[in-house]
Protein backbone atom coordinates (compact mmCIF):
# COMPACT_ATOMS: atom_id res chain seq x y z
CA UNK A 1 0.00 0.00 0.00
CA UNK A 2 1.69 3.27 -1.01
CA UNK A 3 1.47 6.24 1.35
CA UNK A 4 0.30 4.28 4.39
CA UNK A 5 -0.87 7.23 6.42
CA UNK A 6 -3.25 7.27 9.34
CA UNK A 7 -4.70 4.60 11.59
CA UNK A 8 -6.22 2.29 8.98
CA UNK A 9 -4.76 3.24 5.60
CA UNK A 10 -6.90 0.65 3.85
CA UNK A 11 -9.67 3.23 4.05
CA UNK A 12 -7.71 5.29 1.54
CA UNK A 13 -7.45 2.57 -1.10
CA UNK A 14 -9.53 2.79 -4.27
CA UNK A 15 -10.68 -0.78 -3.95
CA UNK A 16 -12.10 -0.17 -0.49
CA UNK A 17 -13.85 3.03 -1.54
CA UNK A 18 -15.31 1.60 -4.74
CA UNK A 19 -16.56 -1.57 -3.09
CA UNK A 20 -19.01 0.33 -0.89
CA UNK A 21 -22.73 0.30 -1.75
CA UNK A 22 -23.69 3.52 0.03
CA UNK A 23 -25.09 5.44 -2.95
CA UNK A 24 -27.57 7.97 -1.57
CA UNK A 25 -30.97 8.60 -3.12
CA UNK A 26 -31.57 11.78 -5.12
CA UNK A 27 -33.66 13.35 -2.38
CA UNK A 28 -30.80 13.40 0.12
CA UNK A 29 -28.64 16.52 0.15
CA UNK A 30 -26.84 16.75 3.50
CA UNK A 31 -25.77 14.02 5.94
CA UNK A 32 -24.88 14.97 9.54
CA UNK A 33 -23.55 12.67 12.28
CA UNK A 34 -23.63 13.80 15.93
CA UNK A 35 -21.62 11.71 18.39
CA UNK A 36 -19.09 11.84 21.24
CA UNK A 37 -15.53 10.63 21.14
CA UNK A 38 -15.91 8.78 24.49
CA UNK A 39 -18.84 6.72 25.71
CA UNK A 40 -19.94 3.11 25.32
CA UNK A 41 -23.24 3.94 23.67
CA UNK A 42 -21.38 6.10 21.11
CA UNK A 43 -19.06 3.30 20.06
CA UNK A 44 -21.16 2.17 17.10
CA UNK A 45 -21.41 5.71 15.76
CA UNK A 46 -17.67 6.26 16.20
CA UNK A 47 -16.86 3.13 14.25
CA UNK A 48 -19.39 3.93 11.54
CA UNK A 49 -17.77 7.34 11.03
CA UNK A 50 -14.27 5.84 11.13
CA UNK A 51 -14.93 3.11 8.58
CA UNK A 52 -17.80 4.20 6.36
CA UNK A 53 -17.92 7.98 6.11
CA UNK A 54 -15.11 8.13 3.56
CA UNK A 55 -16.88 5.54 1.44
CA UNK A 56 -20.09 7.55 1.62
CA UNK A 57 -18.40 10.73 0.48
CA UNK A 58 -16.56 8.92 -2.30
CA UNK A 59 -19.75 7.51 -3.74
CA UNK A 60 -21.62 10.83 -3.35
CA UNK A 61 -19.17 13.63 -4.12
CA UNK A 62 -21.91 16.25 -4.45
CA UNK A 63 -23.44 15.63 -1.02
CA UNK A 64 -22.32 17.52 2.08
CA UNK A 65 -21.24 15.20 4.89
CA UNK A 66 -20.52 16.71 8.32
CA UNK A 67 -19.76 15.46 11.85
CA UNK A 68 -20.46 17.17 15.16
CA UNK A 69 -18.49 15.84 18.12
CA UNK A 70 -19.01 16.04 21.87
CA UNK A 71 -22.16 18.11 21.96
CA UNK A 72 -24.84 15.43 22.25
CA UNK A 73 -25.68 13.07 25.11
CA UNK A 74 -26.75 10.34 22.70
CA UNK A 75 -25.60 9.80 19.10
CA UNK A 76 -27.82 10.30 16.04
CA UNK A 77 -27.64 10.76 12.29
CA UNK A 78 -29.67 13.56 10.72
CA UNK A 79 -30.22 13.63 6.97
CA UNK A 80 -31.58 16.70 5.16
CA UNK A 81 -33.73 16.17 2.05
CA UNK A 82 -34.22 18.38 -0.96
CA UNK A 83 -37.67 19.58 0.19
CA UNK A 84 -36.07 21.14 3.28
CA UNK A 85 -37.22 18.49 5.74
CA UNK A 86 -34.91 16.27 7.75
CA UNK A 87 -34.99 12.65 8.87
CA UNK A 88 -33.59 11.67 12.25
CA UNK A 89 -31.95 8.30 12.84
CA UNK A 90 -31.25 7.33 16.46
CA UNK A 91 -28.11 5.18 16.78
CA UNK A 92 -27.75 4.97 20.56
CA UNK A 93 -25.97 1.74 21.61
CA UNK A 94 -26.16 0.30 18.10
CA UNK A 95 -23.30 -1.61 16.53
CA UNK A 96 -21.45 -0.39 13.45
CA UNK A 97 -22.94 -3.01 11.13
CA UNK A 98 -26.44 -2.31 12.43
CA UNK A 99 -26.04 1.37 11.72
CA UNK A 100 -24.62 0.62 8.27
CA UNK A 101 -27.50 -1.67 7.34
CA UNK A 102 -30.16 0.64 8.67
CA UNK A 103 -28.62 3.64 6.93
CA UNK A 104 -28.42 1.75 3.66
CA UNK A 105 -32.00 0.61 3.89
CA UNK A 106 -33.41 4.04 4.66
CA UNK A 107 -31.26 6.50 2.69
CA UNK A 108 -29.45 4.66 -0.09
CA UNK A 109 -30.48 3.27 -3.43
CA UNK A 110 -31.33 -0.39 -3.29
CA UNK A 111 -29.31 -3.06 -5.08
CA UNK A 112 -31.96 -3.51 -7.79
CA UNK A 113 -32.05 0.21 -8.48
CA UNK A 114 -28.26 0.35 -8.73
CA UNK A 115 -28.20 -2.60 -11.15
CA UNK A 116 -30.88 -0.93 -13.26
CA UNK A 117 -28.92 2.31 -13.43
CA UNK A 118 -25.78 0.42 -14.35
CA UNK A 119 -27.60 -1.31 -17.21
CA UNK A 120 -29.04 2.01 -18.44
CA UNK A 121 -25.64 3.62 -18.39
CA UNK A 122 -24.16 0.79 -20.46
CA UNK A 123 -26.93 0.84 -23.07
CA UNK A 124 -26.68 4.61 -23.50
CA UNK A 125 -23.01 4.38 -24.46
CA UNK A 126 -23.18 4.41 -28.25
CA UNK A 127 -20.03 2.73 -29.65
CA UNK A 128 -20.23 5.01 -32.70
CA UNK A 129 -19.53 8.11 -30.57
CA UNK A 130 -16.16 9.76 -30.54
CA UNK A 131 -14.69 12.41 -28.31
CA UNK A 132 -14.02 12.73 -24.60
CA UNK A 133 -14.94 9.60 -22.68
CA UNK A 134 -15.39 7.44 -25.77
CA UNK A 135 -13.25 4.86 -27.50
CA UNK A 136 -12.03 7.27 -30.18
CA UNK A 137 -10.93 10.81 -29.57
CA UNK A 138 -11.55 12.18 -33.08
CA UNK A 139 -13.24 11.06 -36.30
CA UNK A 140 -9.89 11.28 -38.09
CA UNK A 141 -8.82 8.09 -36.27
CA UNK A 142 -11.40 6.04 -38.18
CA UNK A 143 -10.07 4.44 -41.39
CA UNK A 144 -11.90 5.77 -44.42
CA UNK A 145 -12.42 9.26 -43.00
CA UNK A 146 -10.55 12.48 -43.77
CA UNK A 147 -7.08 12.28 -42.16
CA UNK A 148 -6.15 14.60 -39.30
CA UNK A 149 -5.61 18.14 -40.65
CA UNK A 150 -2.75 18.51 -38.20
CA UNK A 151 -0.86 15.82 -40.15
CA UNK A 152 -2.16 16.18 -43.70
CA UNK A 153 -3.44 19.67 -44.66
CA UNK A 154 -6.97 19.74 -46.04
CA UNK A 155 -7.30 20.92 -49.75
CA UNK A 156 -7.82 24.65 -50.12
CA UNK A 157 -11.30 24.27 -51.61
CA UNK A 158 -12.52 22.75 -48.35
CA UNK A 159 -11.01 25.37 -46.09
CA UNK A 160 -13.24 28.17 -44.84
CA UNK A 161 -10.59 30.80 -45.04
CA UNK A 162 -10.37 30.34 -48.83
CA UNK A 163 -14.05 29.73 -49.45
CA UNK A 164 -15.43 32.72 -47.63
CA UNK A 165 -12.79 35.29 -48.44
CA UNK A 166 -9.48 36.06 -46.80
CA UNK A 167 -7.77 39.36 -46.24
CA UNK A 168 -4.54 39.25 -48.33
CA UNK A 169 -1.63 41.28 -47.18
Amino acid sequence: MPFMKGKAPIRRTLQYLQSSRLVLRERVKVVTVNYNTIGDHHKGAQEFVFWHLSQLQYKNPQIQVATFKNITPSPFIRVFLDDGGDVLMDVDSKSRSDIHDHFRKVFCKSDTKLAEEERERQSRDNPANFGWGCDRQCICEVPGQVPCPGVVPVPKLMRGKYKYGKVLD
Partner: protein
Amino acid sequence: MISARHNIISLGCGARLWYPVNEATLSLAGSQTVRWRKPRWVPVAKSKMFKIPPRTITPKEEVVEITRLFNMYRTQMRAVRRHLWEESLRRADTSELSMQQAAEDEAEHQQILEYNHQENLRVAALREERVRKEFEANLARVEASKEKLAKQALEAQEKALHLITETQALVKTFIKREDLEEAIETAIANPIDYNFVIDQEGHIFRGCNTKPESIPEEDREKLLSVAQER
Protein backbone atom coordinates in the same frame (compact mmCIF):
# COMPACT_ATOMS: atom_id res chain seq x y z
CA MET B 1 -17.06 57.06 -59.53
CA ILE B 2 -18.01 53.38 -59.58
CA SER B 3 -14.93 51.25 -59.60
CA ALA B 4 -14.37 48.49 -62.19
CA ARG B 5 -15.19 44.91 -61.32
CA HIS B 6 -11.80 43.43 -60.82
CA ASN B 7 -9.92 46.39 -59.50
CA ILE B 8 -8.07 45.85 -56.34
CA ILE B 9 -8.85 48.54 -53.84
CA SER B 10 -6.59 49.51 -51.05
CA LEU B 11 -7.96 50.41 -47.68
CA GLY B 12 -6.70 53.06 -45.35
CA CYS B 13 -4.78 50.60 -43.15
CA GLY B 14 -2.87 49.11 -46.13
CA ALA B 15 -4.72 45.78 -46.59
CA ARG B 16 -6.18 44.95 -49.99
CA LEU B 17 -9.44 43.23 -51.05
CA TRP B 18 -9.95 40.94 -54.06
CA TYR B 19 -13.75 41.24 -54.16
CA PRO B 20 -15.46 44.38 -55.51
CA VAL B 21 -16.61 46.98 -53.03
CA ASN B 22 -18.11 50.43 -53.51
CA GLU B 23 -15.58 53.09 -52.61
CA ALA B 24 -18.24 55.02 -50.79
CA THR B 25 -18.75 52.19 -48.28
CA LEU B 26 -15.15 52.10 -47.11
CA SER B 27 -14.76 53.66 -43.72
CA LEU B 28 -11.89 54.68 -41.50
CA ALA B 29 -12.41 51.76 -39.17
CA GLY B 30 -11.68 49.34 -42.04
CA SER B 31 -15.14 47.66 -42.08
CA GLN B 32 -17.08 47.63 -45.32
CA THR B 33 -20.23 46.20 -46.89
CA VAL B 34 -19.53 43.19 -49.05
CA ARG B 35 -22.15 43.53 -51.72
CA TRP B 36 -22.33 46.23 -54.44
CA ARG B 37 -25.78 47.00 -55.67
CA LYS B 38 -27.02 49.58 -58.15
CA PRO B 39 -28.78 52.57 -56.57
CA ARG B 40 -32.57 52.16 -56.75
CA TRP B 41 -33.17 55.22 -58.93
CA VAL B 42 -30.91 53.94 -61.73
CA PRO B 43 -32.95 52.18 -64.47
CA VAL B 44 -32.34 48.66 -65.75
CA ALA B 45 -29.34 48.32 -68.07
CA LYS B 46 -30.06 48.43 -71.80
CA SER B 47 -28.53 45.02 -72.38
CA LYS B 48 -30.76 43.44 -69.74
CA MET B 49 -34.06 45.27 -70.25
CA PHE B 50 -35.79 42.69 -72.53
CA LYS B 51 -33.94 39.65 -71.36
CA ILE B 52 -36.12 36.58 -70.89
CA PRO B 53 -34.77 34.15 -68.32
CA PRO B 54 -34.63 30.65 -69.77
CA ARG B 55 -37.03 28.16 -68.32
CA THR B 56 -35.20 25.19 -66.92
CA ILE B 57 -36.50 21.95 -68.38
CA THR B 58 -35.83 18.80 -66.42
CA PRO B 59 -36.37 15.50 -68.23
CA LYS B 60 -39.35 13.48 -67.02
CA GLU B 61 -37.27 10.53 -65.84
CA GLU B 62 -35.16 12.81 -63.69
CA VAL B 63 -38.24 14.40 -62.18
CA VAL B 64 -39.66 10.99 -61.40
CA GLU B 65 -36.39 9.84 -59.84
CA ILE B 66 -36.03 13.01 -57.78
CA THR B 67 -39.62 12.75 -56.56
CA ARG B 68 -39.09 9.13 -55.61
CA LEU B 69 -35.94 9.95 -53.64
CA PHE B 70 -37.56 12.96 -52.00
CA ASN B 71 -40.57 10.90 -50.92
CA MET B 72 -38.31 8.25 -49.46
CA TYR B 73 -36.35 10.89 -47.59
CA ARG B 74 -39.48 12.60 -46.31
CA THR B 75 -40.98 9.34 -45.12
CA GLN B 76 -37.82 8.43 -43.27
CA MET B 77 -37.44 11.84 -41.66
CA ARG B 78 -41.06 11.90 -40.63
CA ALA B 79 -40.77 8.44 -39.16
CA VAL B 80 -37.70 9.41 -37.13
CA ARG B 81 -39.26 12.64 -35.95
CA ARG B 82 -42.47 10.90 -34.98
CA HIS B 83 -40.59 8.21 -33.13
CA LEU B 84 -38.68 10.82 -31.13
CA TRP B 85 -41.85 12.78 -30.40
CA GLU B 86 -43.60 9.66 -29.11
CA GLU B 87 -40.61 8.83 -26.95
CA SER B 88 -40.61 12.33 -25.49
CA LEU B 89 -44.30 11.95 -24.74
CA ARG B 90 -43.63 8.68 -23.03
CA ARG B 91 -40.88 10.09 -20.92
CA ALA B 92 -42.57 13.40 -20.11
CA ASP B 93 -43.06 14.40 -16.50
CA THR B 94 -46.83 14.53 -16.83
CA SER B 95 -47.24 11.24 -18.67
CA GLU B 96 -49.08 8.36 -17.08
CA LEU B 97 -46.01 6.27 -16.50
CA SER B 98 -44.06 9.04 -14.80
CA MET B 99 -47.01 9.99 -12.63
CA GLN B 100 -47.30 6.37 -11.60
CA GLN B 101 -43.57 6.25 -10.96
CA ALA B 102 -43.76 9.42 -8.89
CA ALA B 103 -46.63 8.04 -6.84
CA GLU B 104 -44.73 4.81 -6.28
CA ASP B 105 -41.63 6.73 -5.21
CA GLU B 106 -43.68 8.76 -2.80
CA ALA B 107 -45.24 5.64 -1.31
CA GLU B 108 -41.83 4.03 -0.97
CA HIS B 109 -40.52 7.15 0.72
CA GLN B 110 -43.39 7.12 3.23
CA GLN B 111 -42.81 3.44 3.90
CA ILE B 112 -39.16 4.02 4.55
CA LEU B 113 -39.90 6.95 6.87
CA GLU B 114 -42.31 4.73 8.76
CA TYR B 115 -39.70 2.00 9.12
CA ASN B 116 -37.18 4.56 10.34
CA HIS B 117 -39.69 5.87 12.85
CA GLN B 118 -40.30 2.38 14.22
CA GLU B 119 -36.58 1.78 14.57
CA ASN B 120 -36.20 5.06 16.38
CA LEU B 121 -38.93 4.11 18.84
CA ARG B 122 -37.29 0.78 19.51
CA VAL B 123 -33.91 2.38 20.11
CA ALA B 124 -35.53 5.08 22.24
CA ALA B 125 -36.98 2.40 24.52
CA LEU B 126 -33.56 0.79 24.88
CA ARG B 127 -32.01 4.15 25.58
CA GLU B 128 -34.56 4.99 28.26
CA GLU B 129 -33.79 1.65 29.89
CA ARG B 130 -30.07 2.30 29.85
CA VAL B 131 -30.44 5.82 31.20
CA ARG B 132 -32.72 4.59 33.97
CA LYS B 133 -30.23 1.90 34.93
CA GLU B 134 -27.39 4.39 34.97
CA PHE B 135 -29.43 6.75 37.14
CA GLU B 136 -30.18 3.99 39.63
CA ALA B 137 -26.54 2.95 39.68
CA ASN B 138 -25.60 6.54 40.40
CA LEU B 139 -28.05 6.77 43.27
CA ALA B 140 -26.76 3.52 44.76
CA ARG B 141 -23.21 4.75 44.45
CA VAL B 142 -24.04 8.00 46.20
CA GLU B 143 -25.80 6.12 49.00
CA ALA B 144 -22.85 3.81 49.47
CA SER B 145 -20.41 6.69 49.63
CA LYS B 146 -22.61 8.50 52.14
CA GLU B 147 -22.68 5.41 54.34
CA LYS B 148 -18.95 5.05 54.08
CA LEU B 149 -18.42 8.64 55.12
CA ALA B 150 -20.78 8.23 58.06
CA LYS B 151 -18.94 5.11 59.18
CA GLN B 152 -15.62 6.86 58.87
CA ALA B 153 -16.90 9.77 60.94
CA LEU B 154 -18.12 7.36 63.62
CA GLU B 155 -14.81 5.57 63.76
CA ALA B 156 -12.93 8.83 64.02
CA GLN B 157 -15.19 9.87 66.88
CA GLU B 158 -14.63 6.60 68.70
CA LYS B 159 -10.91 6.89 68.28
CA ALA B 160 -10.94 10.40 69.66
CA LEU B 161 -12.97 9.28 72.71
CA HIS B 162 -10.61 6.38 73.30
CA LEU B 163 -7.67 8.76 73.18
CA ILE B 164 -9.35 11.08 75.67
CA THR B 165 -10.11 8.33 78.18
CA GLU B 166 -6.58 6.96 77.90
CA THR B 167 -5.14 10.42 78.47
CA GLN B 168 -7.45 10.93 81.41
CA ALA B 169 -6.21 7.69 82.94
CA LEU B 170 -2.66 8.72 82.22
CA VAL B 171 -3.17 12.12 83.79
CA LYS B 172 -4.07 10.41 87.06
CA THR B 173 -0.57 8.87 87.26
CA PHE B 174 1.20 12.24 86.93
CA ILE B 175 3.26 13.23 89.95
CA LYS B 176 2.14 16.54 91.49
CA ARG B 177 4.66 19.09 92.75
CA GLU B 178 3.63 18.50 96.40
CA ASP B 179 4.10 14.73 96.10
CA LEU B 180 7.44 15.08 94.29
CA GLU B 181 9.69 14.26 97.22
CA GLU B 182 7.50 11.34 98.27
CA ALA B 183 7.62 10.00 94.74
CA ILE B 184 11.42 10.29 94.60
CA GLU B 185 11.75 8.45 97.90
CA THR B 186 9.44 5.64 96.76
CA ALA B 187 11.36 5.40 93.49
CA ILE B 188 14.70 5.10 95.27
CA ALA B 189 13.24 2.57 97.67
CA ASN B 190 11.85 0.36 94.87
CA PRO B 191 14.38 0.13 92.06
CA ILE B 192 12.99 -1.52 88.90
CA ASP B 193 15.15 -4.18 87.33
CA TYR B 194 14.73 -4.09 83.49
CA ASN B 195 16.97 -7.12 82.86
CA PHE B 196 15.42 -10.29 81.46
CA VAL B 197 16.30 -13.48 79.70
CA ILE B 198 14.44 -15.39 77.00
CA ASP B 199 14.92 -19.05 76.22
CA GLN B 200 14.11 -20.92 73.02
CA GLU B 201 10.77 -22.21 74.24
CA GLY B 202 9.58 -18.63 74.67
CA HIS B 203 9.85 -18.37 78.48
CA ILE B 204 10.88 -15.00 79.85
CA PHE B 205 12.84 -14.75 83.16
CA ARG B 206 12.85 -11.24 84.62
CA GLY B 207 15.44 -9.84 86.98
CA CYS B 208 19.25 -9.95 86.71
CA ASN B 209 19.60 -12.27 89.68
CA THR B 210 16.95 -14.82 88.67
CA LYS B 211 18.20 -18.19 87.69
CA PRO B 212 16.08 -20.03 85.14
CA GLU B 213 16.61 -23.43 86.85
CA SER B 214 15.25 -22.10 90.14
CA ILE B 215 11.77 -21.40 88.81
CA PRO B 216 9.64 -24.51 88.31
CA GLU B 217 8.08 -25.32 84.87
CA GLU B 218 4.51 -24.36 85.76
CA ASP B 219 5.43 -20.85 87.06
CA ARG B 220 7.51 -19.88 84.07
CA GLU B 221 6.16 -16.83 82.23
CA LYS B 222 5.51 -17.56 78.61
CA LEU B 223 6.29 -14.72 76.23
CA LEU B 224 3.26 -13.95 74.01
CA SER B 225 4.07 -13.75 70.31
CA VAL B 226 4.18 -10.36 68.73
CA ALA B 227 1.16 -11.15 66.58
CA GLN B 228 -0.91 -12.28 69.56
CA GLU B 229 -0.01 -9.17 71.50
CA ARG B 230 -1.14 -7.00 68.70
